[in-house]
Structure formats: C-alpha cells, structure tokens
C-alpha cells in the first residue's frame, strides 16, 4: 500500500487546470500549422493564424487561451494499491479546482441550472473515477467550454442503421452545429455501452492527441472517412468557409445491448485543452 496525501492531489489538480487553460498542446498547434498551409480559403488561413498567435500570447503571458475556461472535468485513474490519506479525496480535488481557478485568474463558469447563480469558485468538479491496477494516481484535467458542449448529442440508434448510420449521424451533427462550436473542432464519438456510457466514451475520446488513430484498423478507417466528409462540408474555421472544419475525429467503441446502438457525439472547440500528471 502506497500512501498519497490529499494535499498533493490538491496541488496537482490546481496546477493542471492552470496549465491546461494557458498552454495549448503541441499536437493542436501542429494541426493549426497544417491548416495555415493547406486551407484553400484565404479567410480560413487568416483565422488559423490568429488562433496560432492567440496561443502564443496565452503561453507567453500565462493568460487563458479562451475566456471560457470551462467546467472542471477530471478523469482519474486510481491505483488499487494507493491509500489516500489526509482527508476526503473529492474535497481535495474540489479544493484544487478552487485554487487553480482563483490563482490562475480563470473564469468561474459553474452555476445553478435554474437560478443561474454562480457557485463562485467553479466547483463542483466533474469527476470520472476508475480503479486500476498499481500504486499510482493518474489525473487528467479537461477544462470543457460551454459553446461546443451545447452542440453535443446522445442518440439511441436502431441497430439496423449500422456503421453507415453512425457515420451519417456524426457528419450531420457537425453540419447542423455550423459555426456555433468554434470550428475547427475535435469530435469525440462514443459508440456502444449504455445511454450514459456512450457519453462518457465520447468525452474520453477527446483525451487523444490529434492524429492518434483507434488501434482497430477498421475503426481507424471509419474515423478517417468521417473526418474527410466533415472537411468537405465547407464550414471552415469560425464558419467563415474553408476546408478545415474539424482537426480530428476519435471513435471509442464498446459492446452494447442486443437491442441498442447508443451513440454520443461530444464536440470540442479548437481550444482542445487537456493536461495530465501521475502521482
């Protein structure tokens, strides 16, 4: 049994959210460069240059890439040989969010769904916990903005529609979302499981790096095909027209009920922010 103190968890969570909100990943920046070089539309190329410049300023000044610094979503893999000491595990995570959003001058976007009263410190965090073998704690912080999240959908398809029905639904979802989710987007697709499991898979898919294909060659092919179809829609960066509507499409697939074909599409804006640490 290895002991991990809650103070350490708080500090790691704090640092991860501050880092994720100000420093865009190299994979996303490389995808921006690709669009600056390849998009046919001069307006699209100009927008992509602005986004690159924005990321540079954010990194240099340690200021948020986007003012929507998101709800604080966390994926945590807790080793089964870890003993958490010092206090409540969940409280420690929320304290990390509280500190990170305050000290990092990040926007607090959590509110009551009806009164719309802000909780004031961006808690509660959205925590997805998995128990895994080993004596480590892996923490992945994913600040998730509202604009792209609002364009996401879960649909319980009829099994008869098959893989083509899945592909069509994803492409249509991106088409209908148009300029709203801040294209170029990253598309997380969860297929299978149950209603809620498909949504979780779609969110988890967004943790992949741009260009990282599903290990199953058939599914990898489907990802590439859907990405190609999306980029033929013409929506382009910010919806001003162009060939760069999405930077990548990630499918995560699991078995489902014999009667079902659950499908979730989680849309991520170009500020595809996620950072991880291992304790």
């Amino acid at each position, binding site marked *: 049994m290895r002991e991990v103190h809650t103070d350490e968890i708080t500090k790691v969570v704090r640092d991860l959210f501050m880092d994720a909100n100000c420093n865009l990943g190299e994979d996303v920046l490389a995808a921006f460069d690709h669009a600056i070089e390849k998009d046919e539309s001069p307006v699209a190329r100009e927008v992509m240059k602005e986004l690159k410049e924005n990321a540079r300023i954010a990194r240099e000044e340690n200021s948020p890439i986007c*003012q929507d610094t998101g709800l604080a979503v966390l994926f945590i893999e807790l080793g089964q040989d870890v003993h958490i000491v010092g206090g409540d595990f969940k409280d420690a995570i929320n304290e990390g969010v509280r500190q990170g959003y305050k000290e990092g001058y990040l926007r607090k976007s959590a509110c009551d769904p009806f009164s719309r009263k802000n909780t004031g410190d961006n808690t509660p965090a959205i925590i997805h916990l998995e128990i895994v073998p080993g004596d480590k704690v892996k923490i992945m912080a994913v600040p998730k903005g509202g604009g792209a999240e609002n364009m996401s959908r879960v649909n319980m398809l009829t099994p008869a529609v098959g893989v083509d029905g899945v592909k069509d639904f994803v492409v249509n979802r991106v088409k209908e979302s148009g300029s709203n989710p801040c294209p170029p987007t990253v598309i997380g697709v969860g297929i299978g499981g149950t209603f809620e499991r498909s949504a979780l898979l779609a969110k988890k898919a967004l943790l992949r790096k741009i260009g990282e294909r599903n290990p199953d060659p058939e599914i990898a092919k489907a990802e590439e095909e859907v990405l190609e179809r999306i980029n*033929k829609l013409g929506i382009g960066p910010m919806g001003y027209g162009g060939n760069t509507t999405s930077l990548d499409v990630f499918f995560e697939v699991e078995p489902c009920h014999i009667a079902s074909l659950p499908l979730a599409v989680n849309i991520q804006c170009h500020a595809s922010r996620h950072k991880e640490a291992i304790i």
Partner: protein
Amino acid sequence: MSNKIELTTPLSTEDVENLNIGDKVFLNGIIYTGRDAAHKRLIDLLNEGKELPIDVKGQIIYYVGPSPAKPGKPIGSAGPTTSYRMDAYAPKLIELGMKGMIGKGNRASEVIEAMKKYKAVYLGATGGAGALIAKSIKKAEIVAYEDLGPEAIRKLEVEDFPVVVINDTKGNDLYVEGANKYSKE
C-alpha cells in the same frame, strides 16, 4: 475578406448600411458587453416599461463574459460567446436603435429580419482567441449588474477591435455563403 474598414462608435444607419458580409472592420470607441443573464434583465425591464441602465441607441453589444483581469490589466481573456442564446432578446434591442452585435455562431431568422428592418449588423469576433482580442481592449468598467460577475454589463474602450461582418443590413449571411463556396458535398 473584401474590404478593411475602420469605424468609431456610436454608429449611424449610414455606417452600417455601407457594410457587406466578409468585410473586416476595426472598431474604435465604446462598446458594451452583455450575455445571457444581463440580456434577460434588460428585456425584463423593458417589459415592465422601465428605463435601461444603458442607452443602446447607435451602440454595439459584445456577447462576452471575460475571465478575471490580472493586476495591472484592464480585462482578462475576452473572446465572443455563442450568440444564438441572445436571439430571443436581440430583436427588441435592435428596434430600440442598437446598431451592432458582436459574437460568434448562427443567428435566428427573427434577428436577421430585425437587422434588415431596423438597419443593424451582426459582427463576428474570432471565437477562442480571447488572449489576442484582449489586446484591443484598453479600458473596462462595470456599468450594471455587478452581481452577475463575468456576466455583468461592462463598458469597454476599444482600439482597432477586429471583427468580420457576418450579417449585413441586406439580409446576407457569411456563414451560408462561405460554406457554399467551399462545400464539396
């Protein structure tokens, strides 16, 4: 982009009538911020027959909820939020003489119709470029609804604030025309 134009607020009907979709505009002067909760309060006031805390005539409302300002800075990151959530409120403000809205994303047909009828424009700022856009905001002051935090109405003094005309006064839509031009479906 077709043209590069500089404009100073408040805007006249003639100013906005001269704009066409795709034009790149650099704004100077005062613009006001407002998003979901502030819009709801403004429209509630109008429904009660009361006066608004700001005069919208000739003005531009920027749909933004900035991140907190660091010490010594006027504002934090300040990119646009998605505009359709303000669609229910916008036509009334356009009728009162508001000349522009800055945001991102598609507008409802009622808003586009109101822009045609009362002469106003919808301007796009680059979503997710909050750190870059903040550079053109020189001063920020809360003028109403401080309790709303990031959603409070702020008066911003801007210099060369970059926007693109999405909907002009003739009913054209850059989102429709841009996608049509590059679609390979």
